[in-house]
């Protein structure tokens, strides 16, 4: 890759072209904050939180599992709002935010689906049951995986953004319907622990649970802080490439 910097190249790269760009102060800040909270919550999970009476130490997966589920919903809500924002304003930033949030949300949803069965096996004796919350999470995972598939299989970038926005909106509208229908279909979530309104959780557990939520929120923000500028840089690159091929200027810019 030659050393000349094209006009309008993405900022935030510290003025260096080529290899890995430096992180901005904000990105470094949020990464450090996330790391601090993560270490604190990990300590709390294994050493501070009380040992659960019935399930024992296995219950500690809860501090990884439940906050991931909550923040995953938040991430998909952000995708929903950003999708509407894109369709209304047609500003590419909304599209980048929608996609980034869907990716991070899908990651957290995968965490829920991986930690859940690991927890379920010793407690319920089975990796999986088709009850309300598990099935809802699985459907959610499928919905947002198909959101990303729609992006992958649509070649035209403008079409891609529009289609994804429509799927992002309809997918989120479906979530409460899916949850209600599966809850009605299967009855109860057979968990001993009830987390509603903080009732039923002992003090130390509540603290670590809260710590877990804050950590996951920070992790979400941290991943978004890295992914969104990356997405915007990809948009810039695509714009530059399209411009170069339109002008017929020499050899195409290589992506490698």
């Amino acid at each position, binding site marked *: 890759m030659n050393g000349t910097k094209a006009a309008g190249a993405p900022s935030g790269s510290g003025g260096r072209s080529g290899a890995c760009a430096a992180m901005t102060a904000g990105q470094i800040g949020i990464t450090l904050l996330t790391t601090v909270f993560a270490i604190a919550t990990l300590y709390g999970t294994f050493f501070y939180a009380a040992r659960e009476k019935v399930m024992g130490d296995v219950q500690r997966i809860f501090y990884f599992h439940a906050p991931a589920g909550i923040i995953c919903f938040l991430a998909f809500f952000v995708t929903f709002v950003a999708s509407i924002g894109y*369709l209304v304003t047609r500003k590419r930033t909304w599209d980048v935010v929608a996609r980034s949030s869907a990716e991070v949300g899908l990651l957290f949803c995968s965490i829920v689906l991986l930690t859940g069965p690991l927890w379920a096996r010793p407690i319920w004796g089975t990796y999986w049951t088709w009850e309300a919350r598990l099935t809802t999470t699985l*459907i959610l995972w*499928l*919905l947002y995986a*198909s959101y990303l*598939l*729609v992006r992958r*299989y*649509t*070649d035209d970038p403008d*079409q891609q953004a*529009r*289609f994804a*926005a*429509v*799927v992002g*909106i*309809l*997918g989120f*509208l*479906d979530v409460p*319907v*899916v949850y*209600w*229908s*599966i809850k*009605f*279909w299967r009855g109860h979530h057979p968990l001993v622990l009830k987390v509603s309104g903080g009732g039923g959780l002992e003090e130390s557990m509540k603290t670590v649970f809260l710590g877990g939520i804050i950590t996951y929120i920070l992790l979400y923000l941290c991943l978004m802080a890295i992914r969104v500028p990356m997405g915007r840089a990809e948009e810039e690159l695509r714009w530059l490439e399209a411009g170069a091929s339109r002008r017929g200027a020499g050899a195409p810019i290589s992506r490698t």
Partner: protein
Amino acid sequence: MNGAFAGLLREARKALLVCGKDLRIEWKSPDNLPAMFFFGLLVLVIFNFGFEAITPSFVDVGPGMLWVAFSFSGVLTFAHAFAVEREGDALQGLLVAPIDAGTLYIGKMIACFLSMTLVELAILPLSALLFDFNIVPVAGSLAVVVPIHTLGYAAVGTLFSAMAARTRRGDVLLPILLFSLSVPLMISAVRCTQAALAGGAIFTGPAGAWMAMACAFDVIFLAAATLTFEYVVED
């Protein structure tokens, strides 16, 4: 208020024109309906082999079997709905016509709904025959349950097929999107059909709650799809 009502009637007429066009095309050269019918029938036959070892009652396994058959043949009709517009770039013609995108969607959706209903009307009696079930006493309940769920399915399917027609691997993308989104509707469909086949009440009790949810699903997604269709078909 009078102007709004007249406007609504005008849009309804345009939607029916679009729907009529699709149905007329199908009538002139039956391409889609035979395929849907045979596919649905094939699904029933295959399911029968799957359950042969245990001899379940039709009320227990019938609803699931029927709705798998309907949903798979539904995918065929949705795929066909926009594939047919690819010839001669017919979709462009529709889009430059003085017709609102939402109205175009409603027209297409009604055509898909009617195609699915025709196939269901053929498959239901046939399934009763194949599985030795007397369907006549429950025909009334079925006549309520099946169309309500078909409507919601057609609402979502038509929108996603417009999208899938313009992507690579649209044939794979359409079922993935459609099945993920319509899970609650399918659960409701199976529950309500089971209640109907068992001769039970469909407007009260658990089945009644499911019917209410299905109606809510229909309304929410018809509205959402009508509003977002223009973003899918714009250039």
